[in-house]
């Protein structure tokens, strides 16, 4: 990220928190009524999702791509080198 873009992002982030103080005043009933709550929640939530998901994947859920391939079946075909026959387009090869 260039220094200019980083500055823009910083301004936007600070701005979003500062603007929160200029709304119509109301008593905080919920946890999210406190100023800046969603800034913290966004950052912490994102980090939580990344770390929790990756940990779940690494230790429990993820397997090699051949996991479900029955013994003896040929490996999944590699994409054609020239890219001229999109694999997603059965229709291109089977006009009917």
């Amino acid at each position, binding site marked *: *990220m260039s220094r200019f873009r980083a500055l823009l*992002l910083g301004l*936007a*982030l600070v*701005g*979003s*928190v500062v*603007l*929160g103080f*200029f*709304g*119509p005043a109301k008593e905080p009933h*919920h*946890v*999210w009524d406190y100023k800046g*709550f*969603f*800034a913290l*929640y*966004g*950052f*912490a*939530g*994102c*980090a939580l*999702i*990344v770390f*929790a*998901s*990756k940990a779940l*994947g690494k230790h*429990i*859920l*993820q*397997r*090699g*791509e051949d*996991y*479900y391939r*029955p*013994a003896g*079946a040929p490996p*999944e*075909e590699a*994409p*054609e*080198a020239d*890219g*001229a*026959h*999109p*694999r*997603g*387009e*059965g*229709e*291109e*090869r089977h*006009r*009917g």
Partner: protein
Amino acid sequence: MAELPPFLPFFAGALLLPILPRGLRGIFFLVPPALAMWTLSGMQDGSTLSITLLGWELTPLRVDRLALLFGWVFAIVAFIGGVYALHLRSLGQQVAASLYAGSALGAVFAGDLITLLVFWEIMALGSAWLVWSRRTPASLAAGMRYIYVHLAGGGLLMAGILLHAGDTGSLAFTAFAQPSPAAWLILLGFGINAAIPPLHAWLPDAYPQATVTGAVFMSAFTTKTAVYALARGFAGWELLVPFGVAMTLYGVVYATLANDIRRLLAYHIVSQVGYMVAGVGLGSQMGINGATAHAFTHILYKGLLFMGAGAVLHATARSKLTELGGLGRFMPWTVALYLVGAFSISGFPLFSGFVSKAVTVDAAAKLGRDGVVLLLHLASIGTFLSTTLKLPYFTWWGPRRAYELVPIPWNMTAGMALAAGLNIFLGVYPQALYAILPYPLDYHPYTHSHLVKSAQLLGFTFLAFWLLRSRMGGKPRITLDTDWLYRRPAGLAYRLTVVTVDRLFGGVEALVLRMAEPLRALLANPHKPAGGLLRTIARLDFPIGGADPEPACFDVSRYRFSTGGVLFVLLLVFALLLAGALLVA
């Protein structure tokens, strides 16, 4: 004319498509959605069409605000999908997509459970065909798993319907007020199509294997028909709230781990449908409004996202993040239009998801469900992370991988542009959507607190993504899901009933063949092993070749005399015995 059921143009179209010239079919595919929209615009709230069959009253057409909302968005997305698929020359896919769209429309206007069930099953067939049409071994297998799950779901639904008809004597599809075995079975049938975990695994299994255009239709119809059915039958069933909230986060976690871009988007269908299921479970008028409004916008932005991912697949023949990168400069329109869909699903102000998600979340807040509100916001963070940051970053930015690109047909871009336009229109002018919701809604999404909340959530999620982006890339791995429960035993069953039996037969065959060789050597000349006795008799012969050792093969002339002599004696003895027996008798 206004009472023409909107599924009819699609079914008629499916019949006409095969007899049309190939070049016209793409254009003709747009006629049924246009006719359906024309029919819908003339429909009166409250009108019905009933017939009596075998003593049961069936209602193939029941018009109300809930059905009309889904009918409109189904017709719109069928039209947009048709534009996106204009270049298609595959009759099978065009007919299947027509039947699929038509039966989705038929299902939401079905006033009775039998009509609903019939359309439900045609949808399963039509959509399975769109998976099989990709014609790769993986898609054939995924399509089979898909159809098995949906046939099982249809079976549960039918069992529930028959039980319900027996209990109540009515086939009308109305809200199920009391939990009963029949209602539970029907809920399970709906739940499978709504992809409620743990019944959801068919969706991320099959959608990434469908054709480029097929996946666009699939993202629209199956789960949203189920949301409609839940809203009609199970509004206010408290159980749906925890399941819906769990869904939103379940999809987010799996999307974070996904490597295939269309599987990532498929998991975000699970996640987004969670908002709708939770809204239905809340049961308040605002909850139902939120669920249906979100279904409407979801169909438009999720179709757009699948169109964008499909364009990448079409251009590169690749769909894995680990194989993509740096494509942005070569498909700027695709990137821009995809991002409109991504901003919509993430709830950016001025895009469609913002105006519909807020209704559901506020419905939960109004009922004092603070936990629900916070968890839905968390899912919203994950949605932004995967669909708007991770997928585009690793597909279109970064170093370019070396492979050739196939140009994207103009009509695919046009389809995306139509969907993007509608997403922006609904984001800018939400009252157009609020006006057609099932219940009256006086709601203004563009308040100071909503805008600040969105800016903070999105901005700081972006910051966290940027700091953690090195950990975010796809890995060439698959993530186990509940389909493990039927895919792993399937391998075991295959080994047990096919491989093992095959091996057993092979072993027996080899054994027989191995025994045949010595037996052949042994029996080629029965005189040879018979040894001494026969050799004794053989001395009576007139030897042709002198006292040669026994030949390897039986020689007829060599033993003619001895064999004849033995036979003569045997026959003589037999004849004498027979004669004696006859005389005695």
